C-alpha cells in the first residue's frame, strides 16, 4: 500500500486479503467497531484533529486492521479488557500516523508539557508556517480553543523564536531592518542556550540515577504535564503519597544538580520553568516545585 505523502491518502494498489482468514475474524472486527470508534473519537478530540483529519485517521486505522487480516484482534487473548487493548492498539497506530503527519518535525518540550493544544499551536506556526495571529485564529475557529495564560506564554516564546517572514518588494527591502537579533543579543542567547543545555544534561544524569518508577513519574508529570491524579491512577499509587513522592524527587534532583556544580540561580530558573509549564494548579506540587527551587 502506498500513500500520497502530502495528503496521506492511499493512492494505488488493490487490497489483498489473505484467503486463509475466516469470517470469524471479520465478525470480531465488526463487533469491536463501536469500541474502536469510541476510542478513536476520544483520541481525535484529545489531539484536536479537525473533522476531516479525524475521518481520515479512523478510515486508515480500519484499513490497517483489515489489511493485516485482523491480526491485532486475533492476537488478543483477554489479559486485559478489550477496550483497554483496543485503546493501546489505536495509540500504537497513532504513534506511526503522527510520524507520517509531522514528518521530521517534533514538538518542543514546552509544547509537549501543554499537551495536544500546545503541540498544535507550535505545529501550526513552526511546521506549517502560519503567522502567530493566523495560528491563533485557526485554533479558535477550527478547534474552539481560546488561549489561556500558559498557551499565551508558549505563543510568546514561539513568536520570539520564529520572526515572521514579510514579503516586500526588492526596492523596499533595502530600507528594511533585518529581523535578526543584534549580534550582542545573539551572544547572550548562545550563552543562555549553552547554560540550559548544561543544566538539562545534568538533570538527565540525575534522573537516570533514580529508580524506573521515579523516572516514569517525573516524565509523566513534567515532560507531559499530566495531572497528578491521572498519574496516580495509571501507576496504581496513592495520590496523596504521590504528591509527597514528587516533592521528594524534586529535592533529590536539586541536591544532585548542586552536587554537579550547578548554581542555585540556574537550578531555580530551571525548576521555575518546569513548574510553570507543567502545572495544573496543584498546590502540593507547586509547593514542591517552590521547595525544590528555593
Amino acid at each position, binding site marked *: 500500500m502506498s500513500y500520497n505523502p502530502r495528503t496521506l*491518502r*492511499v*493512492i494505488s494498489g*488493490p*487490497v*489483498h*486479503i489473505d*484467503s486463509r*482468514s*475466516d*469470517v*470469524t475474524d*471479520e*465478525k*470480531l472486527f*465488526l*463487533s*469491536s*467497531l*463501536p*469500541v474502536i470508534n*469510541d*476510542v478513536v473519537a*476520544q*483520541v481525535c478530540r*484529545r489531539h484536536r484533529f479537525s473533522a476531516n483529519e479525524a475521518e*481520515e485517521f479512523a*478510515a*486508515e486505522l*480500519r*484499513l490497517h486492521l*483489515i*489489511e493485516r487480516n485482523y491480526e*491485532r484482534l*486475533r*492476537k*488478543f487473548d*483477554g*489479559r*486485559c*479488557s*478489550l*477496550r*483497554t*487493548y483496543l*485503546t*493501546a492498539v489505536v*495509540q*500504537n497506530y497513532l*504513534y506511526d500516523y503522527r510520524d507520517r503527519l509531522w514528518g521530521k518535525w517534533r514538538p518542543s518540550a514546552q509544547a509537549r508539557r501543554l499537551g495536544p493544544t500546545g503541540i498544535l499551536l507550535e505545529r501550526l506556526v513552526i511546521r506549517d508556517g502560519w503567522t502567530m495571529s493566523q495560528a491563533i485564529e485557526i485554533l479558535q475557529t477550527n478547534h474552539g480553543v481560546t488561549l489561556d495564560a500558559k498557551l499565551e506564554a508558549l505563543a510568546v516564546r514561539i513568536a520570539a523564536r520564529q520572526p515572521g517572514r514579510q514579503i516586500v518588494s526588492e526596492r523596499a527591502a533595502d530600507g528594511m531592518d533585518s529581523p535578526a537579533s543584534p549580534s550582542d543579543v545573539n551572544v547572550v542567547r548562545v550563552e543562555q542556550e549553552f547554560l540550559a543545555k548544561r543544566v538539562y544534561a545534568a538533570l538527565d544524569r540525575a534522573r537516570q540515577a533514580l529508580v*524506573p*518508577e521515579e*523516572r*516514569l513519574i517525573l*516524565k509523566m508529570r513534567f515532560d*507531559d504535564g*499530566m495531572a497528578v491524579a491521572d498519574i496516580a*491512577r*495509571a501507576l*496504581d499509587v496513592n495520590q496523596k503519597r504521590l504528591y509527597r513522592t514528587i516533592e521528594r524527587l524534586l529535592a533529590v534532583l536539586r541536591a544532585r544538580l548542586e552536587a554537579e556544580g550547578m548554581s542555585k540561580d540556574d537550578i531555580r530558573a530551571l525548576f521555575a520553568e518546569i513548574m510553570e509549564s507543567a502545572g495544573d494548579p496543584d498546590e502540593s506540587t507547586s509547593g514542591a516545585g517552590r521547595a525544590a527551587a528555593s
Partner: protein
Amino acid sequence: MTPEAMKQHTDCPDLETIGAYLEKRLGRTERAHVTEHLADCERCYFIFSEAAQVKPAGPVEPAGWRERLLRPVVMWPSAGALVAAAAAWLIIAGAVVPSPSMESPASAALVAAVGTERPVEPRLTGGFAYGPVPGALRTGTPLTFVASPDVRIAAALVEKEATARRTPQSLKALGVAYLVMDDVSRAVSVLEDAANQPNPDPRVLADLSAAYLVRGTRSNRPQDFASALAAADRAVSLDGGLAEARFNRAYALERMSRPDEARRAWEDYLRIDDKSGWAEEARNHLKSLPGASIR
C-alpha cells in the same frame, strides 16, 4: 517479563501487556519490568501515557466476542452474519443505499462507500448512485477517481467474500470492485468468467460491457467497444428493463461512431429512465450527436 510479552519490537512489551499494566493485572515482577521499559522507550511510553488519558467510559465490550474467537473456524458465513456485516458496513460508510436483494452485503458496502463519486463513465449495476463524470484539468488530463480508504475497505471485503465463495454473484461483485479500484484488466477477466457461466445474469453482462468500455477507452482498443456492445445486447435481450445495460449499449454505439444507432439507443434508455441524473447525462449525449432530437 515473560518472553511472550516481549515480542513487539526488540524488547517492547506487546500491546496487551501495556493494557494489563494499565489495569493493574500484572504480577509484581512483570510490572516492575514494564515500568522500567516505559521509563526509557518512547513508543511504549506514548502508548501507555496516551491510553491512560483516554476516558474509560464508552460502549461496553461486544458480548460474546471471546466465545466467537474460540469457536472452530467457520469458512462459510451464515446469512445472519452477512446481514450483520452489511449493517455494520453501511454504518461505517455513513450512508444507506437501497440494495437489490441479489447484491451481497459487501457489494452494498462498496456502493455506499463510493456514494456519488463516479469511478467509471459507463454504468455499473448494484445500485450505484448517480455522480457526474469528473472533469479534466486545463492541460486536458482527465481527473481520475481516487478510491477513499472506505472504498478500499469495502473492495477488500468483496475480494475476501469472492475468495471464500466463488459464485457468479461473488465474481460479478469482484469484477465491479476491481473496476472501481481501477484494476481494469482483472475486472474484465473476472467478469468474463462470471459471464461464461450457463444462464448468465444480465447484470453480469451489463457490468462486463462497462468493463470493456473502460478498457477500450483507456487502451484505445476499438474491438473492446464491439465486445461491450455484444455484452450489452445480450443483457438487454435477457432483461429489456435493465437501465445499466441500455446505458452502456448506447455508450458503446456512440464510441463506435454509429450516431444513428446511438441516438436510438439513448432514446431507448430515456424511455425507461427520464428523471435521474443518468437520464440528464443521456440527454447530453443525445445533444452531442449530430442531428439528434431531444425528448
